[in-house]
């Protein structure tokens, strides 16, 4: 009886291994469907729209026509593209890859050594900016950097005069604002990664006479390489997409001095009503994001033994 039952079971398992595996994927299906509908859907729609002359109003609003690569050809000859690309690279490089990443790592390393209350206060202060909704953070940053803002009042108190930060140094202002807002994420990732480093390893290095910098360079950083790559990928993509912060603070101005690709895409699609051209800009942005994503995914794979 017992034997025959087992035979039936094994026979059953042998006959339909694919079905079991597929059944195991079932719980993932809703998530995948949601991703496809709400993430892949708009991306595909944007790609499609970028090959049309879709517009908000006018003759092509309801029945856009297929115009092939015209939008892309126009984009390549648009003097705004190199400017906007350059600004985007500076913004992402400066505020994410250098700013948030290094500052987050530094904070995480220092907080391991700091006294508990100090670490708690610093941690709360940094995370507070991350907790704020983007629009609130953007207004806070605008209020801080604007002409009558906090920064100028502080500088005025020191007798350093008034600078129109958002006008004279718009890129610096949005860089600093984004570093302020986003550092918490890197800090949290690195704190988690650092706490995973076994104490023995650091101890052994200490015994061998490694100094603080040597331990950081040869022990800590190699051991958290995976976290660094993951963190870089996430903050790069997040920063590529930053729109609200820039829109509220400078709206891309003055004289386009802070028009990154997302701002340019918005301006073209909604301010000028040229949805086709705007989505072409957005598609370029997606491509850049994909390239970064692929590069980091590769980095992660090489990391594994």
């Amino acid at each position: 009886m017992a034997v025959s039952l087992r035979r039936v079971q094994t026979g059953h398992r042998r006959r339909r291994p694919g079905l079991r595996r597929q059944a195991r994927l079932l719980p993932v299906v809703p998530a995948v469907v949601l991703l496809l509908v709400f993430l892949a859907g708009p991306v595909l729609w944007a790609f499609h729209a970028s090959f049309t002359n879709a517009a908000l109003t006018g003759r092509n609003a309801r029945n856009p026509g297929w115009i092939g690569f015209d939008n892309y050809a126009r984009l390549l000859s648009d003097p705004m593209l190199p400017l906007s690309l350059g600004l985007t690279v500076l913004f992402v490089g400066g505020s994410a890859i250098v700013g948030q990443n290094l500052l987050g790592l530094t904070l995480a390393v220092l907080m391991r050594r700091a006294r508990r209350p100090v670490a708690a206060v610093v941690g709360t202060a940094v995370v507070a900016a991350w907790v704020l909704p983007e629009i609130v953070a953007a207004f806070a940053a605008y209020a801080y950097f604007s002409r009558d803002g906090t920064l100028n009042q502080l500088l005025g108190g020191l007798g350093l005069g008034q600078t129109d930060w958002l006008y004279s140094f718009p890129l610096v202002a949005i860089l600093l604002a984004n570093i302020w807002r986003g550092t918490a994420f890197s800090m949290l990732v690195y704190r988690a990664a650092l706490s995973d480093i076994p104490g023995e390893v650091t101890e052994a290095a200490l015994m061998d006479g490694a100094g603080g910098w040597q331990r950081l360079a040869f022990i800590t950083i190699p051991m958290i390489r995976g976290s660094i790559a993951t963190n870089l990928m996430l903050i790069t993509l997040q920063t590529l997409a930053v729109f609200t912060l820039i829109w509220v603070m400078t709206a891309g101005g003055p004289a386009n001095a802070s028009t990154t690709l997302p701002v340019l895409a918005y301006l073209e699609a909604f301010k000028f009503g040229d949805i086709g051209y705007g989505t072409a800009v957005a598609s370029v942005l997606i491509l850049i994001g994909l390239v970064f994503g692929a590069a980091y995914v590769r980095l992660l794979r090489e990391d594994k033994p």
Partner: protein
Amino acid sequence: MGRALKITSLIAAAGFVLTACSAASPEAETRTLKVAYQKTDSFTALDTLFQAAKQEFEAANQGVTVALEPIQANDDDYGTKLALALRSPSTAPDVFYEDTFKVRSDVDAGYLLKLDSHLEGWEDWDTFDDGAKAAGLGDDGGTYAVPLGTDTRGIWYNKKVLTAAGVSVPWEPRTWQDILDTARKIKASDATVVPFNMYAGKATGEGTVMQSFYELLYGTGSELYDADAKKWVVGSPGFTDSLGFLKTLYDEKLAVSPAEALDANVWKKVFGEWLPEGKLGATVEGSYTPSFWQKGGSYEWAEYGQDMGVTAFPTQNGQAPGGVSMSGGWTLAVGAETKNPDLAFEFLATALNQKNSLAFNVASSQIAVRKDVAADSGYQAANPFVKDVSELVAVTHYRPATAEYPRISAAVQEATEAVITGAKSPEQAAADYDTAVKGIVGEAKTVAK
């Protein structure tokens, strides 16, 4: 499996970059009229109008619900949100508030219902001013929108500031030079006062062109668009001269600093702080200006009637007709896809009847387009400037209402920004504008004059 995960995560990552738009739920009942309009903290007159019209209409039409859908946004964003809603029949409102300069391109897009057959049976239509009726015309000559009111633009000056500087009031500048002379006089008498504000740059959007650049341009005898030839004007000396005037104003610090000019909120300071506090000599603004200062306005200022004066913006050298104004204004329109065109038009007619038009024109300091409203004593006494600004209708101009206009306007704004920040000379900025225009509409649709 690993590959699928990777692809999924890449797609998810790309999703970070592009945010999706959301769709609204479809209409639940057929006998519901959706009404879309603009409402902001400082602009509630329209909300009041529609609330009143809704009550009146629902009482007269049993079983019909009017769903008011105010959109909280500035003019630019309102236009965008409305256009997005109009793109799909399931989200398109039945009746909506429409900017006059968007009427033609939205007719082109097929968003607006032709109203000719409805207007024939509406006796009130005869009371509308003929000039104002033209604002609702499509390219085919049909009427697609009914005007709510119009506006004009002139120079608003603070009499106290001018008198303190030794300028006699009423002030009536005849030429651009008169403006500069007066501004220099104010500057010399009190360096802390901003003598003369004219908007510039992209931050103030349409304000830059409607309340500044076009007053200059149309006063040189030049124009933006040759309406007869349907071509955009390039290479005009008037364009360069206008930029030159702005340059003088900003370079000599007779206007606000470029940094202040490029703050999108500068107009709030003009109305809310500088003029009431006597820190600004004069500004170019619209006939709706008193709506900010009168009782219930966003910057109540009891003495504005005595302290402020209004005058026409002069032509370059005082040439005929001696003044320049720009006009815009808003209309009500019916959505092309509405399921109840008759009801929708009836609601539009209720909202625009004599009583409601009067209340709206008074509350928002609009120039009336209904003759029976214009003749009403309540309207004429609404604020001390009704007569002055209404007279500017004689010298007013309208924006070219074509689909390319928003882009051309942006190019003009960019030219002013480049000049006041010192990035380009007026000649360079004008040449770059010409290139931009040719790029936007194509060389064939431009004319040099």
